[in-house]
């Protein structure tokens, strides 16, 4: 069982031959293809990462633009509202002033008419009292 003979060195030589052959037909090509594949994968991974970064940048830009435009239209709305408010209040004030003025003229006219009517009435009272006096005196 433990008889060493020429099998030993011949096996060693055979093993080295096998190693050389396998290195040529198995290890080298497969190592090459495995490393090629891993570089390909890492390349496409970096590519994808770059693309993702670009997409992220574009999204950020877009969101920023969106926020800007939102702010802009809010300010426009606020301005328009303020303007409308202003116009409305101006018109209201004008209308109120007009109404006040109209009432004042009306009151003044009314007062004038009252004065004139009073004057006429007094005149008529005077003439009527004259006539009454005349009639009474005639009777006497």
């Amino acid at each position, binding site marked *: 069982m433990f008889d060493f003979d*020429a*099998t030993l060195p011949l096996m060693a030589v055979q093993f080295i031959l096998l190693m050389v052959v396998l290195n040529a*037909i198995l290890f080298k090509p497969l190592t090459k293809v495995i490393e090629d594949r891993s570089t390909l994968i890492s390349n496409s991974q970096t590519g994808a990462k770059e693309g993702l970064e670009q997409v992220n940048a574009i999204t950020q830009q877009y969101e920023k633009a969106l926020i800007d435009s939102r702010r802009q239209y809010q300010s426009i709305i606020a301005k328009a509202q303020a303007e409308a408010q202003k116009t409305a209040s101006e018109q209201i004030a004008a209308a109120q002033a007009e109404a006040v003025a109209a009432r004042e003229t009306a009151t003044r006219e009314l007062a004038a008419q009252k004065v004139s009517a009073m004057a006429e009435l007094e005149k008529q009272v005077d003439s009527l009292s004259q006539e009454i006096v005349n009639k009474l005196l005639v009777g006497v």
Partner: protein
Amino acid sequence: MPLDIEMLNFLDSPNFVSLAALEVGQHFYWHIGSLKVHGQVFLATWFVMSVLIIASLLATRNIQQIPKGMQNLMEYAMDFIRELTRNQIGEKEYRPWVPFIGTLFLFIFVCNWSGALIPWKLIHLPEGELAAPTNDINTTVALSLLVSIAYFYAGFKKKGLSYFAKYVQPTPILLPIAVLEDFTKPLSLSFRLFGNILADELVVGVLVLLVPLFVPLPVMLLGLFTSAIQALVFATLAGAYIHEALEGHGDEHEEEHA
């Protein structure tokens, strides 16, 4: 020199139907010049080598970016080997050692499984019997001596003669132990592999001898498992020894990757 008492030969008495015989220490000798070699080991080794080479050719005949079939299988094995080597030797220096450790692993693995899966016993040789090549002490000693040479080569290539500094590195008192380690490493490597594979075959053989049907199956499955683990252990230890030779005892600061 085989023992006079043939092991278990009482089972071959006429009362037993001989379904399987155990032959240990019998070899099918070939004579090359004045040298004797074990023919059955070479036959089995050539079979294993042709299996490996055919599988590799099938895998790399038409290499594609997206692997299919045989290429997929061999790439799986390749990934496993690269991972093993990287874990043992480290990210920086593992690449040149992948072929050596990978061939060790594949060769031992296919040898062990061929011994467990292929009914070699059906092929009759004039003397001895076909079995896993790792069943022969010559094969395992050859492999473990190659591992020894490999780690010496690794140490020399990296550090030159200062590689020997590691023998007296922590303290010169440990010099005998450090030298002894260089002998026990190949010894334990070869005996571990040889003993495990031989034990598997003997256990299966004895069980088949006693109960030829179904009962040996669980033991055979255990044998498959052990064979795979032994291939893994051999490759892992080879990697660990090479790593040790590359790192040495002195420069612990390089062990960051571990």
